Structures are given as C-alpha cells and as structure tokens.
C-alpha cells in the first residue's frame, strides 16, 4: 500500500472519529435540552395545580398564570391569599408526585410584612424528610402572597432520564477508543516497516558496494594484461585492501549491535568486563590513529574510570568516525575531558554539519538516521544506538549539543574511579579475539 494512500486513509479515519464524536455530543446536548424543557413544562403544570388548590382552599379565583420562572431551577407561584406551610408542602409533594417529578426541592413562603421569605424547608426524596432551607430564596416584588420553589437536583434528575443516551455514548467512546488504538498500531507498524526497508536499503548498499568493487577488481587481476601494468596492479591491490577492510568493519559494526541487543525487547545484554581505564591515555592513543589528526584538550586532573575497555574503545572510535563522516570540509575534531564534582565529562566535538534539535533524542534509536543526512553519508543507523547501549550498560549518561551548520558535541558523564577500588590500569587497546 502506498504511503499516500495510507495517509489519506488515516486522515479519513481521523475525520470519521471526529464526526462520530461531534454527532454524539450534539445528540446528547439536544436530548438534555429537550428533557430540561419537559421538566420546566411539567413543573409549570404541577405548580399551577398547587396554586389552584391553595386558591380553592381560600375560596378565591386565581389568576390564570400563577407560575413565573425566575431561574432555570427556581419558580415563583402566586397564590393571592395566605398560605399555610404544612398544607402547601403537602400540595406540592402530591402534585409533583402526580406528574412524576420525584426530585428534591426547597421552598419558601413570602412574608409581605417583613418583605422576605419567612418559612423554608428542604424536602428530600430520600424519605421525604424536612430539613431547613439551604439558603435564602429570592423574593419577587410583583406579588403579595406567593411562595418560591427551587429544584436543586434538577440537573441530576434530567441526567438520570438520559441513562440510555449516556450508555450509548459510552459504547461509542469505547468503539472510538478501540478504533483509535488500532489506527495507532497500524501507524506504528507502518513506521517499523519503513525503518526496516531503510535499513535493508542501507545494509544492501553498504555491503554490496565493497563486494561489487572486489568482484570487479578480482576480474581485472585475473587478466593477463595486468601483469605488464605494475602501477595499475598496485592501485587494484590498494582497492582490494581498503574494500576488504571496509567490509570487515561493516560486518563488525552489525555484529557489535547484535551483541548489544536482545531480541525484540532491545534490552541491553552487554556483558561488561570493567577495569580501571586511564581515559587520557586511551583518548591519546585513539586520536593518533586517525587522519586528519584529532586534537585533545584534557582539563580533568584525573581521568581514571571503571569501564569495559573494549566497548569504550569502540564507542570512542564510533563517535570520531561519525564526527569525520559528517564534517564535509576542513574537519577539526577535539577529544576533551573535564571534571564536574566527582564526575568526569569526556566529549567528542566536531565542526560538521550538525544535528537539528528535533533529532537529538532520536539519533540514539536503532536504525534511525537524520533524514537530511541520508544523502550526506551512508550508514546503517546503528552506530549511535551501539554507543547509547554501551553508555547505558555502564550506567553513564550521554548528551548531545548541536546546532545545524555549527558542529556537534557528544558528551558522556561517568563517575571517577576512586583509588581505594582502583584495580590495575588496563593495558593499551586490545580487542578480545
């Protein structure tokens, strides 16, 4: 499946999810608004009936519209006659129950002499117990005899009526979550496939090119004519030497990473053999093996650390190789040390093409290559992964500071070895056979 098609499918899927969620939210909101309106209308009718019964009790004719809504959950009911609290509460309860409005309410009766609500009670549906009113209910200046009633549980009452909607919304959310998770897996799988393809391309290129060169060179050496051309023979011998060394190095790089990686979990399984290593001696030795010469800048007074000499040497060579590979003109590579508290910081600095900040963490991932650098130099995307594995296995830390166009600096921080536990200083670079 092409990358474009997958992108279009992903985009359509995301739009579908957004669409489904939007429709669901709109439907739930509409249903809530509808239920709210129904509640209000039912409350109007029930309270109108209460007002009518109070009027009948007092032998008066009531105004047709006795109920006024002051807030979404608060109503004023005009009675045009004095109200007995006990009777009123009974009427209210009976009327609300008759209209199936079984929810908590609080009410207050207006005292026109004192201009305030004088009697109030909170009536709970949980056993119908009366408790004092929670707060002072607002008054209404247009009537003389009236009571106010508030439904504090209106929102939860309406929500209970929407149980089916909420359940269906939950199901939709679960389906959407599973769909999103599946989409995430597909995207991750696609990224892995791309990484795998890039790696195969890189490894094919890196291994096939020296093999091709060796094949052509071997064909030339098999010809009779080469025996009479010593200069050409010498050049072909040089090519064979360089390419076989290069092939050896490539295979070694892959094997090093294979040895540092444990199956799919990518957990380190480096078996370290730590000894006391004088980093200044090691850095000087390594600097001397590269062309052009590498500069050293040792500021640490002591640079003895506990490390696996073999892997540490590989790490240093890897970092210097990278520094040279990505410094296209006039390379200035510096190996330096300094002390920070009881830690030794050693670094490899170059004046190369640099790395954009967005890639600083990713470059230590397996097979990761900075996209902009792929055409600058070939590679497997394994070198810095190996470096990171070795650093992690030692319990050290690594940091990269880099600005595109201004070079990079890879700094490793490790604890200094103390003389009390210092074993004998290791011999110069030696690779295990």
């Amino acid at each position: 499946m092409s990358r474009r098609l997958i992108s279009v499918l992903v985009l359509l899927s995301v739009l579908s999810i957004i669409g489904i969620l939007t429709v669901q939210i709109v439907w739930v909101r509409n249903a809530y608004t509808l239920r709210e309106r129904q509640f209000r209308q039912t409350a109007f009718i029930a309270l109108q009936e209460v007002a009518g019964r109070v009027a009948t009790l007092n032998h008066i004719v009531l105004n047709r519209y006795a109920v006024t809504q002051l807030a979404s959950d608060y109503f004023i009911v005009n009675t045009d006659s004095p109200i007995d609290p006990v009777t009123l509460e009974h009427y209210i309860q009976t009327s609300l129950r008759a209209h199936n409005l079984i929810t908590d309410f609080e009410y207050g009766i207006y005292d026109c002499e004192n201009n305030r609500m004088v009697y109030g009670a909170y009536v709970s549906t949980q056993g119908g117990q009366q408790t004092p009113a929670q707060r002072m209910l607002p008054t209404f200046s247009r009537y003389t005899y009236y009571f106010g009633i508030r439904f504090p549980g209106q929102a939860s009452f309406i929500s209970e009526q929407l149980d089916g909607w909420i359940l269906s919304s939950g199901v939709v959310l679960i389906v959407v979550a599973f769909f999103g998770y599946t989409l995430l897996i597909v995207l991750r799988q696609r990224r892995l496939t791309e990484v795998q393809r890039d790696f195969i391309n890189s490894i094919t290129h890196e291994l096939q090119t020296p093999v091709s060169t060796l094949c052509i060179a071997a064909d030339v050496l098999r010809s009779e004519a080469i025996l009479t051309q010593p200069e050409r023979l010498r050049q072909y011998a040089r090519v064979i030497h360089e390419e076989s060394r290069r092939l050896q190095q490539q295979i070694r790089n892959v094997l090093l990473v294979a040895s540092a990686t444990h199956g799919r979990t990518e957990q380190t399984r480096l078996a370290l053999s730590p000894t006391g290593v004088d980093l200044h001696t090691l850095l000087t030795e390594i600097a001397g093996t590269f062309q052009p010469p590498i500069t050293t800048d040792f500021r640490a007074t002591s640079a003895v650390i506990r490390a696996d000499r073999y892997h540490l040497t590989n790490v240093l060579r890897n970092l210097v190789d990278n520094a040279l590979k990505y410094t296209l003109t006039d390379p200035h590579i510096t190996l330096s040390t300094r002390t920070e508290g009881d830690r030794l910081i050693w670094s490899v600095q170059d004046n190369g093409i640099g790395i954009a900040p967005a890639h600083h963490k990713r470059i230590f991932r397996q097979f990761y290559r900075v996209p902009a650098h792929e055409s600058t130099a070939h590679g497997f995307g394994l070198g810095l992964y190996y470096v990171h594995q070795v650093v992690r296995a030692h319990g050290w830390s690594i940091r990269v500071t880099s600005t595109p166009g201004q070079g990079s600096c890879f700094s490793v921080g490790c604890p200094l070895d103390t003389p009390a536990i210092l074993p004998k200083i290791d011999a110069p670079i030696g690779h295990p056979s």
Partner: protein
Amino acid sequence: MTPKAAILYVEDDINLSFVTKDNLELAQFAVTHCLTGPDAWAAFRREPFDVCVLDVMLPGFDGFTLAEKIRADNPAIPILFLSARADKTDRLHGLRLGADDYLTKP
C-alpha cells in the same frame, strides 16, 4: 583513438568508481566521473554526453532527482541506473522517471 562514447558516470564511492571508470576507459569510453548529484548536474549542463550512468544514493540530491532533471533537459539521452538497491520499487521508480535500464551492482 576516438572514444566510443562519452559517459557521465555518477558514483559517490571512490574505489568502486575507480575500478568502473578504469574498465570503461580501457574499453575505449570517455568517462567523466562525478561524486555528487549537484556536481553531475553541473557537468551535464557543461559538456555533451552520449550516455549517463547514475547511482541512486548520492550526496546533494539522489540519482532519481538527477535523472528527472536530465530527462527534462534532454529527452533522448540514454540513462542507466547502476545501484546496489535491488528493490522492485526502486527499479520501477527509476524506469518511470525515464531511465532506459536499471542495473544492480555486480
């Protein structure tokens, strides 16, 4: 002796380009070798060539981009890809861009 043809050969690997160029020259071809995409494009604009032999993975811009530029400039010149990448997608992509053939490195 007049060369059989003038070849623009683009390959960023020094040793592979040395042995290939040496053998092509021995077979009486005039070879102009370039290491990068931009260098090859400059050489193509500067000199006349009879055939272009391009690697795919190149510094600057890759062989596919170079082939596209060359084909836009000269629809008739033979273009040959010589790459280590043997992927079917790469072959098809190269041929779709107008290459006459796509060979994998021996």
